[in-house]
């Protein structure tokens, strides 16, 4: 491994608390996180409170604003780009969403993880 690769990447965390009832708030974390990846940062998005509604299978497939692609397309691109996605287990519980309804390729986590992610991030942005 070269010296450049050994350098720890800067971490950026996006916390999404908005859900599918506010579609205009759904694009930014994915777009920013993909951009962060391109900037050689290590991005993660933590979906909390109503945010978890975005991660329900099929929930954002037809949410589309203006000339943007669907939220689903942007989310899939972010996951493919290697953006780490977390879903808050208790938020799923709160809104009565079974874990089996969550999309694939994400990590279900809880209170200790979100606290830890905030502390270890070099920057945190809340939506």
């Amino acid at each position, binding site marked *: 491994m070269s010296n450049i690769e050994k350098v720890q990447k800067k971490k950026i965390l996006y916390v999404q608390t908005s859900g599918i009832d506010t579609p205009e708030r759904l694009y930014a974390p994915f777009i920013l996180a993909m951009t962060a990846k391109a900037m050689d940062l290590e991005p993660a998005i933590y979906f909390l409170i109503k945010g978890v509604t975005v991660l329900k299978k099929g929930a954002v497939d037809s949410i589309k604003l203006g000339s943007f692609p669907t939220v689903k397309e942007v989310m899939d691109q972010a996951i493919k780009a290697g953006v780490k996605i977390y879903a*808050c287990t208790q938020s799923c519980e709160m809104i009565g969403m079974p874990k089996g309804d969550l999309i694939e390729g994400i990590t279900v986590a*809880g209170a200790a993880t979100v606290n830890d*992610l905030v502390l270890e991030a070099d920057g945190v942005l809340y939506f």
Partner: protein
Amino acid sequence: MEKELDLTGLYCPTPIMRTREEIDKVQLGDVLKVKADDPAAEEDLKRWASRSGQEIVGIMKEGEVVTVTIRRMR
């Protein structure tokens, strides 16, 4: 020495709280085996351990249940 803690049926953040209590009851260098079925438990326990200076020595999954073995380091 090894101590087991069954946390199945308990949900976030209880598995972390209970693990935090129980780790103090094992001797330094001994292990605590935590069994949980909260889907958040694995990720949370790994981060809790790393943040609090404890060592994860094993993670075993059987269906919904994960068993995380933690060595008390401090």
